């Protein structure tokens, strides 16, 4: 709805923090694994949503530019994440054991808080993490929300013509806040999935989760998918593959920066291509100023 949440990165960190807290707390008590995982999902969503509510509320009530506020909060979230592990004795930090006394590390999640993965047996086994399954579900829900419900319709109208929406009596503020919260919740879910699916701990390593820039890549994905949740699945697969390929190819021949370069070029091309969607290019020879009369050869 023409609302730009650039804070996915920070919301993902916060979701990872709250998700890890839930995982450590509920996973450690010997309860059923499904319960711990559900708690992580909910906590991740809640954390991300809370973080996104800040720019959302500021935008709704003070009309503060949400691009800049949400972006600034990325840095704040990054510092918070680093602080929790490196500069404090927080709940997330491993405080006992030999390694912890040498270098600050975070607590490992208990086994019952690790997310299961379904293995598909093609080409020697492809693991589909639980987070991917949830993502499918989220995409489907978003698609229904935006194409089949009143909420989605109103959000679309608000984006296309805020004035028309206001005259029609739609609640602008409430919608801005709700949309931002949903957006943040999904980003936070991504953070919880990072904990449960991949890293199995709250990863504060400056070369770990924070070097992946998932939140920023997410913007690329959304823009390339032209803000269609179903297309996002496909594009995310493409960009994710690209990023992962970048990670495993990294070395002398493939320095890290190329991932961003490629993403940028794809985005530039897609943006330039928009012109062809919106306009029809007609090549017509520019009419020359009337040629000077040729001297008659009679």
């Amino acid at each position, binding site marked *: 709805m023409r609302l730009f949440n650039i804070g996915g990165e920070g919301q993902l960190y916060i979701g990872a923090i709250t998700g890890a807290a839930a995982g450590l707390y509920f996973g450690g008590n010997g309860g059923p694994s499904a319960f711990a995982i559900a708690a992580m999902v909910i906590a991740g969503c809640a954390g991300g949503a809370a973080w996104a509510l800040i720019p959302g509320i500021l935008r709704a009530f003070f009309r503060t530019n949400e691009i800049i506020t949400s972006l*600034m909060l990325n840095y704040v979230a990054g510092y918070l994440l680093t602080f929790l592990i490196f500069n404090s004795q927080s709940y997330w930090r491993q405080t006992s054991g030999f390694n912890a006394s040498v270098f600050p590390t975070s607590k490992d999640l208990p086994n019952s808080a690790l997310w299961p993965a379904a293995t598909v047996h093609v080409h020697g086994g492809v693991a589909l993490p639980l987070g991917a399954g949830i993502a499918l579900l989220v995409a489907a829900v978003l698609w229904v929300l935006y194409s089949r419900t009143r909420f989605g319709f109103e959000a679309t109208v608000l984006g296309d013509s805020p004035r028309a929406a206001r005259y029609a009596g739609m609640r602008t503020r409430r919608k801005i806040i709700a949309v931002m919260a949903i957006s943040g919740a999904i980003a936070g879910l991504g953070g919880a999935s990072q904990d449960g699916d991949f890293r199995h701990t709250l990863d504060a390593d400056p070369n770990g989760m924070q070097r992946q820039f998932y939140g920023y890549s997410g913007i690329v994905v959304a823009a390339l998918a032209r803000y269609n949740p179903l297309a996002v699945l496909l594009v995310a697969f493409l960009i994710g593959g690209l990023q992962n390929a970048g990670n495993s190819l990294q070395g002398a021949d493939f320095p*890290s920066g190329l991932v961003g370069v490629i*993403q940028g070029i794809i985005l530039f091309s897609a943006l*330039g291509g928009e012109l062809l969607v919106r306009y029809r290019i007609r090549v017509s020879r520019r009419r020359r100023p009337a040629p000077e009369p040729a001297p008659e050869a009679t």
Partner: protein
Amino acid sequence: MNHSLAVVLIASGITYGTPLLYAALGELLAERSGVLNLGVEGMMLIGAVMGFWTVQRLHADTGLALAAAVGVAALAGAVVASIHAFLVITLRASQIVSGLAVTIFAGAAGLSSYLGNDFNLGENPARHTFHAVFPASFQRWPIVGPIVFDHNVLVYVSWALVVAVWLYLTRTRPGLNLRAVGDAPGAADAMGIDVIAYRYAHVLAGGAFAGVAGATITLGINTQWVDGITNGAGWIAIALVIFAFWRPELCLVGAYFFGALQDLQPELQARGIHLGPTALWTNALPYVMTIVVLVLVSASSTRRWLGAPAALGTPYVREER
């Protein structure tokens, strides 16, 4: 030399605020022409890496090497800005998405990191760096010494630039034309002003300024290359333009304010001052303050975007005039 915390913070506010000032002035020029460029962070990083590269690879004496480095940084910033300019001015793409694309393309995980890696810039500190212009005896003067005389040439150039931009916008024909282009491109076009050319020129100039801003960091402040060395300064610069109401003289005040915030952490640490989780709040403070000031600006003034160019963010299509 022991100066009070206030003097030190003002002096370091000027040092650390200078990159912000360059970047904000550049963004101001672009926005005054009606083009929002969210790629400042990326352009700064490209300027930072290319300026640093020049200093490491060019065999020349210090003055020449540094001048060349600033030139290369400006050029590199302008080249990156030209992508944005082409996309949003000629191809009429969304300025917001295109600016973000520039930052992703050139930013901490993009071209700047690639170049830094490829040139092996991370290994050594800069061979030539900017130093204070005035002799040390000047700097020992109380208060004025550290605040006015303890700076490198880029700081003094930036002061001249603030005046120059102010004069340009208010006292010269092209400057007035520029404001017309940003406020009412249709009317400007009818007056015979080349809207497209003005927009290109000022977006490129903005990129050049951002490039210099980046070089200010790698050659004047940190004197080394690290991926993502700007750490969000480009975004703070964009916010600065908004709460400076698109006026160069206020950009200066804001830039130094945020510069001082950036230096708060080492200063407090050096003085052994601890207030709660110091490592957290002093690091996060510039970003939080950006939000706070932005909220104050957008909430307090009845005319929300006081001084904002009316056509900011919209492409100019002559056929749709």
